[in-house]
């Protein structure tokens, strides 16, 4: 873990104030930003832990808690709302058997809400990890989940 963090930080040496970029990359590699990870980042960047934690906890794409292997984010903004995103959410909740903010027992999926994903033309939309899916129907949801 230490080596991974060190290597990432070295890659940003020429950058001014790269904290958020570093946290992004560390999370990509290590899954989430645990206390231990944040301490190491703080140590190598020579920043107070309070600051590193303050930043990590401010942004929704940075996770300070462990999540499932795949994160399903349901868009709840107005354009998706009027196209039935609440039905999508209900469907997902029952399909996965979890509520918002929870992770399935097999650790495969976490369910979250998100603001507009910028694909409102195909509302309602969800994002699974980095991949966006639109024009959702119950059948499509099932097919999407099967892929993971």
């Amino acid at each position: 873990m230490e080596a991974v963090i060190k290597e990432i930080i070295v890659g940003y040496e020429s950058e001014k104030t790269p904290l958020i970029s570093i946290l992004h990359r560390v999370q990509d590699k290590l899954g989430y930003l645990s206390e231990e990870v944040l301490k190491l980042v703080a140590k190598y960047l020579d920043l107070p832990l309070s600051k590193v934690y303050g930043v990590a906890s401010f942004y929704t794409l940075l996770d300070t808690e462990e999540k499932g292997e795949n994160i399903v984010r349901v868009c709840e903004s107005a354009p998706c709302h009027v196209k039935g995103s609440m039905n999508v959410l209900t469907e997902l909740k029952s399909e996965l058997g979890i509520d918002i903010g929870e992770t399935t027992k097999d650790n495969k999926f976490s369910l979250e809400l998100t603001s507009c994903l910028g694909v409102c033309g195909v509302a309602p939309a969800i994002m699974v990890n980095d991949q966006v899916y639109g024009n959702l129907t119950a059948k499509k949801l099932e097919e999407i989940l099967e892929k993971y």
Partner: protein
Amino acid sequence: MAFYRGHILVCTGQECKQKGGKEVERILVKELKRFGLNDEIKVISTDCLGACEAGPLMVIYPEGVYYGGVQIEDVREIVEEHLLKGRRVNRLLYEMDESEENVTAHHKKDIFSDEMRIVLRNCGLIDPEDIKDYIGRDGYRALGIALTRLTPKEVITMIEDSGLRGRGGAGFPAGLKWKFTHQADGDEKYVVANADEGEPGTSKDRLIMEGDPHTLLESMAIAGYAVGADTGYIYVRGEYQLAVSRLKKAIEQAEELGVLGKNLFDSDFDFEIKIREGAGAYVCGEETALLRSIEGERGEPQIKPPYPPNEGLWGQPTLINNVETLANIPVIIQKGADWFSKIGIENCTGTKVFTLSGDVMNEGLVEVPMGTTLREIIEGFGGGMADGREFKVAQTGGTSGGCIPKELLDTPMDYDSLAEVGSALGSGALLIMDESHCIVDIAKCFMHFFEHESCGKCTPCREGNTRMYEMLDRISKGESNLKDLDKLRDLANVMSKTALCGLGQAAPTSIYSTLDYFKDEYLAHITAKVCITGDCQELVTQREEGERKGETA
């Protein structure tokens, strides 16, 4: 660069790939070669074209013909019939259905003849991953003109004369901002492109970056020359991964070709561009919060003044503009301020890209001259209301904007006209809703957004949004009384006057406008406990229970 008489866009998005899109593309290239068409027709693999059910999908330009469900064995027929002989293959023709219209598949020119493309001039027509395509359409010419024929001051005067106003929401005159940054003293200056695009219902900046990334790079370099900056940052929303990768590739190619880097066009002007990814915070779209975020801090807005042109990134003079604002620059430089200022209306020149969503036949992005009316957009590009339903309300400017009713459908879409009717042009989001939607439910959805996105730094916003949401929630459940309506308005006044940044100040816009234009609907929820659309579930359930009790009594 080579000239192609046609382009074939093959969708290799997630869905089409699974249906064999990649393989179809490979065979297509092979077949084109076999018929000797490979110098005439260019194959471009694109991201999702938005009709995943019909995949693998391809579009042939300039005709704009869609073929769906294309199998490997169909490829040869398409090449032979369509490309060689000019006859369409009817059995594979795919009609883009409105329900499957995707934001990236917006190039159907015939849908809307009033469309005028300045900002989106290249989107869908070039391969965004090939700088030569961009150059073939006069790319980097404006930068050359600026560097070799114009002084920084002349560039700024041009932008001022064009009348271009910021497209990020506030509509501040771009030229003035450039001038302030130019005049400011600093050891170092920066140009920042605001590509955070967090306003719900907006996807124009994403399309520009995904479809025409070099436009943004070129514009930033011109801006850098004008204000005296040698470094630019693009702050991209963390969710826009495809945009990030296209931009990175574009920067690499531009550096390789020498249109970014040192001594551009043999001048002594150097310019480099870096990308910073956001991490999921709407408030980071606010300029001072965005700069804090680049500085590696929590993205909390700062008190203004000082404004970024005087004290921005790391305390240095910084020009910050929205992606769409910047995308206009190369065209203004090439065609002149005079040409540009004749488009649109007085005080609001040029075009605006609208992201049309909701209950219209055709959703998607449309670029029209400023001042086009809402009705023209809905009936023209939008193809009218979907399912033959009645228009009820449009939210303009995204969640920070306001709601306008049927009576105001002829309002021209520009900053000033919309402000006059209590709404906003904002980012150009246009959410159209029909009579099946409840105003209280929608208002609740808006406030839920702000409650979640408030950064918590100032009290009016942190507390105000939560309280407003709670009040709306009570109204939607029939647990409210008439006093709540006055309280809503009072709280809205406090927030719009005292919140630290635009987030809290603009949050009540939709509350004001819905209270003004749809008061009866609020009253029906409060006094008669009725939600006519049935969106407010709890009221419906209560009523049903009441009726059941009535029957048994």
